[in-house]
C-alpha cells in the first residue's frame, strides 16, 4: 500500500507550477510552462503557406506540431532528433489542439507549433500540451478554450495527482499513469491515454482528481496570459 508520497505531497496536490507567455520573441506566440521539474517551451508560427504542399486542405487550416525532448532534459542523454515517442506525442498534441482551435477560419494555411522539453520529470506531454495551448492563445488564434492537461494515476490502489518519474517507476506497487487534457470550461476531454492497468471504478476516480488539477492549471494559464498585457502597460 502506498501510504505516503515520495515527495511528501498530498495525494491530490500538484507540484509547484510556473507559467509565462511571450518567451520566444521571433515567434507569433510562445509560452513556457513548468510543473515541478518538468518544463516545456512552446512557440507558434503562422498562419502561413502550407509546406509541404500536399498537406494543404482547401477548406481549413492545419496544425503541424513537433514535440522534441532536448538532449539535456533527462539524466541519460536523449538522442537528438525525433524518435517514435516524439512522433506519437506530436500527434496527440496535434489532435488535442485540433479540437481547440477554429481551423476553418484559415483555409489553405498552416500553423506550426514547436514544443521543446527542456527538463523532463514525468508528465511532459501534459506540460507540452498546456504550453502549446497557451502559445496558441498568445499567437491570437481563435480557440474554443485553453487546454489544461495533467497526469494522474494510481499507485497501489491510491489515486495520485501529477506523478513524478520516481512514482511512475514504482511498478511493483502497480503504478498507473493516465495523462489527460481538458477544455476546462467546456468539460470536454481532448487527450486521454493510459499506461498500466486500472479498473473501471478507479479510472473514474483518477479522472475526477485529474479534472480538479486541470482546473487549477487553467486558472494559472489565464493569469499568465493576462499578466502579459498588464506587464506591457507597466513598461
Amino acid at each position, binding site marked *: 500500500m502506498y501510504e505516503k508520497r515520495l515527495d511528501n505531497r498530498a495525494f491530490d496536490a500538484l507540484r509547484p507550477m510556473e507559467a509565462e507567455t511571450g518567451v520566444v520573441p521571433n515567434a507569433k506566440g510562445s509560452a513556457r510552462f513548468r510543473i515541478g521539474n518538468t518544463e516545456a517551451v512552446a512557440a507558434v508560427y503562422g*498562419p502561413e503557406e502550407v509546406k509541404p504542399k500536399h498537406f494543404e486542405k482547401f477548406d481549413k487550416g492545419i496544425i503541424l506540431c513537433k514535440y522534441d525532448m532536448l538532449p539535456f532534459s533527462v539524466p541519460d542523454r536523449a538522442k537528438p532528433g525525433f524518435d517514435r515517442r516524439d512522433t506519437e506525442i506530436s500527434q496527440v498534441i496535434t489532435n488535442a489542439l485540433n479540437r481547440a482551435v477554429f481551423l476553418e477560419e484559415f483555409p489553405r494555411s498552416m500553423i506550426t507549433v514547436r514544443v521543446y522539453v527542456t527538463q523532463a520529470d514525468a508528465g511532459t506531454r501534459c506540460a507540452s500540451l498546456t504550453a502549446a495551448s497557451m502559445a496558441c492563445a498568445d499567437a*491570437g488564434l481563435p480557440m474554443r478554450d*485553453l487546454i489544461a492537461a495533467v497526469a494522474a494515476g494510481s499507485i497501489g490502489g491510491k489515486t495520485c495527482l501529477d506523478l513524478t518519474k520516481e512514482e511512475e517507476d514504482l511498478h511493483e506497487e502497480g503504478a498507473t499513469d493516465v495523462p489527460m487534457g481538458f477544455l476546462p470550461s*467546456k468539460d470536454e476531454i481532448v487527450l486521454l491515454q493510459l499506461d498500466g492497468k486500472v479498473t473501471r471504478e478507479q479510472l473514474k476516480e483518477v479522472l475526477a482528481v485529474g479534472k480538479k488539477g486541470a482546473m487549477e492549471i487553467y486558472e494559472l494559464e489565464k493569469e499568465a*496570459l493576462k499578466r502579459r*498585457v498588464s506587464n*506591457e502597460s507597466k513598461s
Partner: protein
Amino acid sequence: MINVKNFDIVTPGTLLSDENNGRNGTYNEGNNIYSKYFGMVQVNERGVSVGPVTSKYFPEEGDEVIGRIVEAGSKYWVVDIDAPYLVRLDNRDVNFRTEMGELDKYMKAGELILARVTMVYVNNAADISMKGTRYAKLPPNMIVKVDPSKLPRLIGKEGATINLIKQETNCDIVVGQNGVVWIEGKGGNVTAAVDAVKFIEENYYNPNLTDAVREMLQNVREKT
C-alpha cells in the same frame, strides 16, 4: 446579462454573456456567448466583441493594401501583401498602359505599391488591382509593420490619431489595411512618426490613446 466590461482582458473560452449578442471575436455555444480570442473586450449597445491582441492579415474585398512586388512575370506581377499567400496583380489591372512581355520595365521586384483587393476566393487566394486614381507605385521610404489587430487604434475615431501624427510630424503617412504603414517626410520627423506608431502598438489598451500620443510627440519635439 453581460459578464464583462469594456477594456477587460479575456482568454479564449471565457463566458461573456448569456444573451444572443455576440459580435466579432466571439462564438455561440448552447445559448451562451464565449470569447474566441485572447484579447480585449468591447461592449456597446449592439453587443459584445473581442479584439485579439495579435492577428495575421487575411485579405478581404475592398481592402487598401501596401504590397511589395516579388516577381514580374510576362502577364502579371506577384505581390507580397503580408498575408499567408502571395497575390497576383494582372497587367490589365494597372492604371498605365503595359505591353506584354517584360513587365519589370514598369515595376521591378522590391518596389512598393498601393492597391486594392478586388476579389478573395474561398481558398484564401486573392486578386489585387491598381485601377483608379488613388492607387500608384509608392516611392521607397520608411515602412513600419503594425499588427493588423492594432490598426483601429492607430487610425483612431474617424482618423483622429493618424491625423494627429501627420500634423505633428509633417509627414505623409499611408496606412495599408494589411498593417503596413508607409511614412514619407524629413529625417527627424520620420523618426518621430515611427516612434509614435510603435508607441501606439505598445499602448493599444490605453483608453485615451490620442492624448497620450499628443503628449509623447510633444516630448519628442522638446528634446530636439
